[in-house]
């Protein structure tokens, strides 16, 4: 198959979004139909392309000497592309209902659709330059989404978001330039293509560059100490928080780190180096810090945002083991976390949308009135805490296994960190759910009569995610086998 088709899923949503900006569709129904059609068609095309996996690299153009723009589909691209394209139509469906009473919805939906294309661009990028470009674009197109409500809080959050992102990409830029100059092959190759003869004795510089770019890309992945934009950005409408700040944007950061570690610098080179120790310590600190803050946070959505921070670092904990099992565990958790966290956020969104309540202590007794929503939240919460029979357990088990395979003392500490964090997760998720179903104080149930489960557009995504969470928890072998081939670079 001609690799040119890779361009279609990237361009289609971008063009559709641009069209919506130029010619706003004011009719709510027509707009929803238009957006959902574009999203579904794009998802269909993406999945078709991914299953037929066009061989070869699509060369687009060159920004200058040694700066070619290429697109290619390999195992990692398929993996990330699949996650994004499967989640997007459901999230759009949810967004229609959630945004029903908001203002400037046309602009919102336009940028939301554009983001779809750009995220796929990050996934399908064939070399680090292309990835970097799409990565930057992702920051830019999501800015209006974070700012959407235009409250002072939202503006502040957007400003911080921008500062953090620009600061981060500056670090990442250093890594990119270094790699462009010191690599034998600019394209992504499993195992990396650093020209060791030219690096020579300056391996410490290489490590330093790695650490810098790790934190650079790590800003999107919310690695401590660059994490605080993520809880702040939860002022954005829930479809944004759920899809972008639990999946698309943050996972792009993780994805970029995976690409840079396993496809640029190379895990063999980094394994056992001080660079690995440094990033490992920061990743562990992030997990401990974020899960502790999650318990302390009373704002429900921010609490989940902290949970995202810690879970992203679970993925990175696997990734920085610098071994195929580590990457495998990271990929598995990336996938499962995407599903269960988007479900969690959608539940929060449903509660906010139906009742306007934001804080954990306001949720007493709501589970009785919104049983479907809270059941989905229960499944998501149990899965996040890593309980057996749910997806989260499978991936956490794999992460722990990769930590033990590594065998160093620091990695064993990682297991303790995992357990601590699992405990904290259980606390911050279960306290909410227990409150919802079994109110601690006497609640006037008559007062809650007005509330109920949301419409099917919100419930359908929740139902799908819950079923999938349990399904993967009980039977994940086919998908894990696939991920294992990806993690070994065979696909």
């Amino acid at each position, binding site marked *: 198959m001609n690799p040119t088709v890779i361009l279609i899923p990237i361009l289609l949503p971008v063009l559709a979004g641009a069209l919506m900006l130029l010619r706003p569709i004011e009719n709510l129904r027509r707009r929803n139909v238009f957006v959902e059609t574009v999203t579904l068609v794009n998802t269909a095309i993406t999945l078709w392309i991914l299953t037929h996996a066009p061989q070869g690299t699509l060369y687009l153009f060159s920004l200058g000497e040694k700066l070619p723009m290429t697109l290619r589909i390999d195992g990692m691209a398929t993996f990330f592309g699949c996650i994004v394209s499967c989640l997007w139509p459901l999230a759009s469906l949810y967004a229609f209902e959630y945004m029903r009473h908001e203002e400037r919805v046309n602009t919102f939906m336009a940028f939301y659709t554009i983001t779809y294309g750009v995220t796929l661009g990050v996934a399908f990028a064939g070399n680090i330059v292309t990835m970097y470009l799409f990565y930057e674009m992702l920051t830019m197109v999501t800015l209006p989404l974070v700012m959407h409500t235009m409250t002072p809080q939202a503006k502040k959050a957007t400003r911080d978001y921008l500062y953090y992102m620009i600061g981060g990409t500056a670090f990442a830029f250093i890594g990119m330039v270094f790699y462009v100059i010191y690599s034998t092959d600019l394209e992504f190759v499993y195992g990396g293509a650093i020209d060791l003869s030219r690096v020579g004795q300056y391996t410490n510089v290489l490590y330093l560059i790695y650490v810098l770019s790790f934190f650079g890309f790590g800003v999107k992945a919310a690695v401590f100490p660059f994490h605080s934009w993520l809880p702040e950005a939860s002022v954005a409408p829930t479809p944004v928080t759920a899809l972008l700040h639990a999946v698309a944007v943050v996972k792009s950061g993780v994805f970029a780190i995976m690409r840079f570690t396993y496809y640029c610098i190379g895990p063999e080179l980094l394994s056992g180096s001080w660079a690995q120790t440094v990033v490992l310590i920061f990743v562990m600190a992030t997990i401990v810090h974020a899960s502790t803050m999650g318990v302390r946070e009373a704002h429900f959505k921010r609490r989940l945002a902290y949970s995202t921070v810690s879970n992203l670092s679970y993925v990175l904990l696997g990734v920085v083991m610098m071994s195929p099992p580590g990457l495998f565990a990271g990929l598995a958790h990336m996938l499962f976390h995407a599903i269960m966290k988007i479900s969690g956020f959608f539940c929060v969104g449903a509660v906010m949308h139906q009742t306007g309540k934001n804080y954990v202590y306001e949720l007493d007794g709501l589970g009785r009135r919104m049983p479907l929503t809270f059941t989905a939240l229960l499944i998501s919460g149990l899965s996040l805490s890593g309980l*057996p029979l749910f997806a989260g357990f499978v991936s956490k088990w794999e992460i722990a296994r990769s930590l033990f395979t590594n065998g160093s003392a620091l990695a064993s500490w990682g*297991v303790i960190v995992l*357990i601590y964090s699992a405990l904290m997760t259980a606390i911050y998720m279960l306290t909410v759910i227990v409150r919802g179903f079994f109110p601690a104080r006497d609640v006037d149930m008559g007062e809650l009569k007005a509330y109920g489960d949301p419409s099917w557009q919100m419930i359908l995504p929740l139902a799908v995610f819950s079923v999938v969470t349990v399904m993967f928890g009980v039977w994940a072998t086919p998908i894990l086998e696939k991920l294992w081939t990806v993690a070994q670079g065979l696909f």
Partner: protein
Amino acid sequence: MEWSLVLKDVCGMGLSFRVDGFRLLFAGITSYMWLMTSLFSKEYMAHARRKGRYYFFLALTYIATMGVFLSDDLFTTFVFFEMMSLASYVCVIHDEKPGTLRAGGVYLAVAVIGGLVSLMGLFLLYDQAGTLALGQLREACLPLLSGDAGERKRLFIAGFCILFGFGAKAGMFPLHIWLPMAHPVAPAPASALLSGIITKSGIFGMLALSADIFPHDGMWGFIICLFGVASMLLGGVLAIFSVDIKRSLACSSMSQLGMIICGIGMQGLLGDENALAVRGTVLHMVNHSNLKLALFMAAGVIVMNLHKLNLNEIRGYGRKKPLLKLCFLSGALGIAGIPLFNGYISKTLLHESIVEFLKLSHEGGWTLAFLSQNQAALLFRLIEWLFLLTGGMTVAYMTKLFICVFVEKNADPKVQEEYDSMGHYCTPLTAAVLAITAAVLPVLGMLPYATQDRLADMAQTFLHGLSPSHAVNYFSLVNLKGGFISIVLGGLIYLLIVRKLLMGRGEETEIYPNRWPEKLDLLTLIYEPLLLKIFPAVFGFCCRALDFAADGLILFFRRTTHRQLREPEELPADYVLPYYLGRGLNYASARFGCGKDGKRDYRQLLARRRSLSREAWRMFQASASFSLMMFGIGMIVSVIYLIVG
């Protein structure tokens, strides 16, 4: 007779099940208990709300408990163990009163924390032994135990982590806190299950640990034994002090479980000669399940009718109710270890296992590395007596309950009359259930060779136990002696402590006051402050500090090297003097380097001062002329007044 089932790749690691003697026995007991409690629930829950939820989670707990007892590897055990904890939580908090929710919260917290620590232990064990299958662990762990000290230490750490979770469920000191809280508040059928079988799933895990991971390890056995002794003593003391019928039974569970744990410890200590300990442990598990089923359901009948638990309030309820009295009596005699009832058999075996160890250590064959022979002899002599004392305490608190509910009259004669008139207190179905569960107990006790010995034969292979070299004669004088010592001790405790110290004078008759100091509670004294105040404060402080460090760094640079420049202001035009003066000062500061930085523009500064002083002067002028005008007006007014006046 063995079947096994492997579900490959389910839940990541794959689940495996096996049916053999021990598992069959406990699967049978589980099913029997569920059958009985479900039948009992029919009347007990007749007026409860949300019955559907109760029965659904009861069924889910059943599935999970069966899963635990049939599991063939520790991973499967763990999966179902967690499921059981969460499902039973919903049964425990069924009535959703504040006190219930609090107790349920403690139950859930202990279960979750215990589960996670166990998981940690499983990780460690899997890493070290390479397998979690119960059939392979023994071969994998034996070389590790006899290997070098480091390996041994790691295995012990893994073992303690796993023990944490299972021990918490088994009510082992100091993780027993949920037990006396959750049992009284749960519906009686759920209490019976909690105490009778769910705690046994914790014991199942401990047995797997002792038999497969630390087989015949003296050190491990010794530690477990000490935990067991602490649990059985504390449980007994708490039960004697308790004035709540279900709480007493719950504390009694803790005490009996302590005995079982003690037996598990003796298995390790006795090594190859642990036949008595193995059989005693298994049989006491079986007996205790049956006993608590009968006792909690009998207590359930009282609660169902009166909705009260306090001994002073239910006092005298059981008079003139022969069926209830007999059922409770059967349970009481069984648990107190009275000969001809089932508890006596297993307690005797456990006691004999301690005696056996004493004998062996006297012969010099079995000493512990960390204890000299004399110390060991002394210590285990003490443990033997503590064991008998616990038996005595069991006699004492069961006598207290029985006499209070079934013999004494209520302090208020009117209430007593009312109680006596309640002839119909349960449906025939409930009565039948009670009678069956209670009738099992003396049958097991009177025909030990036909019943209990066979059960023990069935189960002991799981624990790698051998049949004892000679059959135990349960009713020989030597064995009866231990039982009688306990009974005498129990009588003394009841007469001297319960009647003299723990009963106070009420208005007319003696009542049962709660003499246990309110403050003396591990939960409120240590765990809650530690987990809810100290840990969050310390961790929270660290997190805040780290957060501040990250922000503070940026703030620091913003204030120092990266300070924003002020926008250059346009110089005002008409300030001639400040302009030149300022230029001079600018020059001077640039030249001589005084002032904090060279970038301050003195022209701006002086011009701003100047405009400020101009503004002030203008205001002053305005106010002076205004007051002058007012003065003038005042003058005119007074002149006109003078002229007119």
